[in-house]
């Protein structure tokens, strides 16, 4: 057994019912684990041309060497496959308690291939692996499924990650759920799992994670635990979740209103009821495995239900759908979690219909007589149910926003705001140029959570201070100034590498490299204590760069080029009509210049956006260069 890693990758062929293992060790030097190692696995196991719902699309779960250790925030798991939405490499990540349990049961990664003939689930207990019948679970929501499995297997401490009815029905943006709302939300992993007839993965383990330097780790880790608890950002999150920061985000035009229609909806700035809702219904704040941060709120609302949520739904089911009724926000959130659909994409779908209705491109007749009025409770909740059930217009949306728009006609198609096939993370890119760049070039069209993006937002709080930070850490004061196009490529480059350090190790990037520790020093130190290696920070960052390039090459192999690194055209054409950044719009030419700068730093070809052979060889990716670029 290794220190940190369990040392085993589990291969499950659902078509053949065959289960094998292979060692993790050969991969760790170049890819570490978690997201990084997962990228290598998907690159090697995915055959180009395979459809996302084809049995040949591998579905891969990745924990890192720090997952499940006494390191705060070590509950993270990365999930990958070919995304049915983007047709690129999918990237999703969830927390909770499942990842640590998988390691205690003996595995670092699971690769699913093939398709089960009948609904099934995988049961892993201390190195024993079994594919079991899930006929009785099919149709259950995600909460019921977890309970039913704990009962069936006779152990309430079993950890389950599963799909809901939406995943079974192949809703493109179906997600995975564990506990009461921890989700691998984005890129449609629930649909891929559903296409394999795989309902759930239940794990239970009593093995541990071996550690190279236990005494030192204990000492450092206790200190980290205390530093996190003392951090103001985390005290805020633990006490108030994100509820208090939401109106502020709107005030600074960082969160869009409606379907990226404009910003600064005065009603939400003045009348956002999140704090009152929290005071009334939050039982406690919860976190993932071994996390003192507790950024999630556990709500218990009579008639609606219990569960956790954090972050995205607080704006997705309020401002993005013109809703101020917090009961509706909560009902929508619980519904999405139980049905197993991604809240971000779902709220964008609703936002799209509301905009189409508002602009009279569609009428109630197009949506089964549901009037898609802005903020309508009926519109919000009915749409979610119909998507999950694939009923009526919900069936159209279940095939993606674009597919639905095509049915509504060319005017509707014009309205769709997506980046690489996904709803953009709900940030307002017109005023925040660096964030826009990160979204455009980013691996899944999603800048979150990158330090460079947060820096632009932080600037609103204390402009001079953050300009100084920007100069020290990112080489230019301009990096912090949201409306500036200068100095934005380097922060994107640095933040992308830092983000991958946390993802490769299996720890939370909110804590490490974003809010508490703002660089990769602490993760590096913890990595060495756990694994017994003596790596310098540069070596971990080099792995991040390799991972970033390999992700890019996977997508290049799928046909991705420079032109795909862009934003919805609304951001280039419609200036903001009010608010703090009134008049701001993304200048197309300057935007392309930021991209040039970014490709330059990356060592990618500016014409095509493809990594150069030279860069790939420098990163030991010569084999990838040979395959995708052709032999030199």
């Amino acid at each position: 057994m290794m220190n940190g890693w369990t040392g085993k990758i589990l291969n499950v062929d659902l078509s053949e019912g065959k289960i094998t293992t292979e060692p993790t060790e050969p991969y760790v030097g170049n890819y570490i684990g978690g997201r990084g190692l997962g990228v290598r696995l998907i690159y090697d196991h995915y055959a180009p041309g395979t459809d996302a719902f084809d049995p040949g699309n591998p579905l891969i779960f990745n924990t890192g060497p720090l997952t499940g250790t006494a390191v705060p925030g070590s509950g993270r798991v990365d999930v990958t496959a070919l995304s049915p939405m983007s047709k690129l490499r999918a990237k999703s990540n969830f927390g909770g308690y499942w990842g640590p349990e998988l390691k205690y049961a003996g595995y670092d990664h699971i690769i699913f291939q093939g398709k089960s003939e009948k609904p099934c689930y995988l049961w892993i207990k201390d190195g024993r692996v079994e594919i079991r019948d899930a006929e009785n679970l099919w149709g259950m929501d995600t909460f019921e499924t977890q309970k039913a499995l704990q009962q069936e297997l006779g152990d309430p401490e079993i950890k389950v990650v599963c799909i809901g009815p939406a995943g079974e029905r192949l809703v493109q943006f179906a997600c995975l759920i564990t506990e009461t709302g921890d989700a691998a939300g984005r890129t449609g992993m629930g649909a891929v799992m559903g296409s394999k007839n795989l309902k759930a993965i239940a794990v239970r383990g009593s093995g541990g994670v071996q550690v190279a330097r236990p005494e030192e780790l204990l000492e450092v880790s206790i200190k980290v635990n205390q530093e996190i608890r003392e951090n103001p950002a985390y005290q805020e999150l633990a006490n108030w979740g994100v509820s208090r920061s939401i109106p502020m985000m709107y005030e600074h035009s960082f969160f869009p209103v409606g379907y990226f229609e404009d910003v600064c909806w005065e009603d939400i700035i003045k009348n956002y009821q999140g704090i009152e809702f929290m005071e009334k219904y939050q039982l406690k704040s919860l976190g993932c495995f071994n996390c003192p941060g507790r950024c999630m709120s556990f709500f218990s609302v009579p008639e609606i239900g219990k569960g956790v949520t954090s972050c995205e739904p607080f704006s997705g089911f309020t401002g993005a759908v013109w809703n101020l009724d917090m009961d509706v926000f909560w009902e929508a959130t619980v519904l999405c979690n139980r049905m197993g659909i991604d809240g971000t994409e779902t709220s964008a779908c609703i936002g799209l219909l509301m905009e189409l209705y508002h602009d009279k491109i569609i009428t109630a007749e197009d949506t089964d007589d549901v009037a898609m009025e802005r903020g309508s409770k009926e519109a919000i909740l009915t749409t979610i149910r119909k998507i999950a059930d694939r009923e009526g217009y919900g069936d159209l949306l279940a095939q993606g926003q674009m597919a639905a728009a095509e049915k509504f006609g060319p005017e509707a198609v014009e309205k769709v705001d997506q980046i690489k096939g996904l709803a953009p993370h709900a940030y307002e890119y017109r005023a925040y140029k660096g964030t826009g760049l990160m979204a455009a070039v980013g691996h899944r069209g999603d800048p979150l959570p990158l330090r460079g993006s947060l820096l632009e937002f932080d600037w609103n709080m204390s402009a001079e201070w953050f300009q100084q930070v920007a100069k020290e850490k990112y080489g230019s004061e301009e990096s912090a100034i949201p409306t500036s196009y200068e100095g934005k490529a380097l922060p994107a480059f640095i933040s992308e590498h830092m983000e991958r350090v946390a993802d490769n190790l299996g720890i939370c990037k909110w804590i490490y490299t974003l809010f508490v520790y703002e660089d990769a020093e602490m993760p590096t130190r913890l990595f060495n204590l756990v694994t017994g290696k003596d790596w310098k920070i540069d070596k971990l960052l080099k792995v991040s760069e390799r991972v970033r390039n390999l992700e890019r090459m996977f997508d290049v192999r799928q046909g991705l080029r420079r032109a795909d690194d862009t934003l919805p055209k609304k951001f280039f054409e419609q200036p903001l009509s009010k608010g703090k950044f009134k008049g701001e719009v993304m200048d197309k030419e300057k935007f392309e210049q930021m991209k040039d700068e970014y490709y330059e730093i990356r060592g990618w070809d500016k014409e095509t956006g493809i990594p150069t052979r030279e860069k790939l060889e420098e990163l030991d990716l010569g084999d990838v260069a040979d395959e995708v670029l052709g032999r030199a």
Partner: protein
Amino acid sequence: MIKTLIVDAQKCSGCRACETYCSLKHEGVCNPAKGRIHIVKWEQDGTFVPINCMRCEAPACELICPKHATYRNYTTGAMEVDPYLCIGCMSCVFACPFGATFVDPDDGRILKCDLCAGDPTCVKVCPTGALTYEEISKETYLKLIENADRIPLLVREAIGGEE
């Protein structure tokens, strides 16, 4: 005055830090299954209950042990097990009314909370204050005040008066 580990389950977030750090401290490995404290979880209700040795006045684990391997450490008040006397019969495990005597899943050793010799690691890392290490008198006094506080309200409710 002697201190002891106090559990306030209402505050627990179920994060398992106590279990994990406990195993690291005592066993040098990260493995909640080797913790000397354990959290029972009802995730869907948001209810979590940390279970730890209650250090009973007449401890069943001590009384039942045929080899007198379980004994009280009078410096800390903790119930400890002498590994040289223990024969591994697990009587103490089954006798414990709280299920707070644990067994190493690998080798069957008895795992009992020794309060880290008076400086419990779990208390240091508990983020919510669900675990505290307090003087017993202080804790009972706080409980007393808390309970007394509720009584006027209960009386008013009982006689059907206003709140």
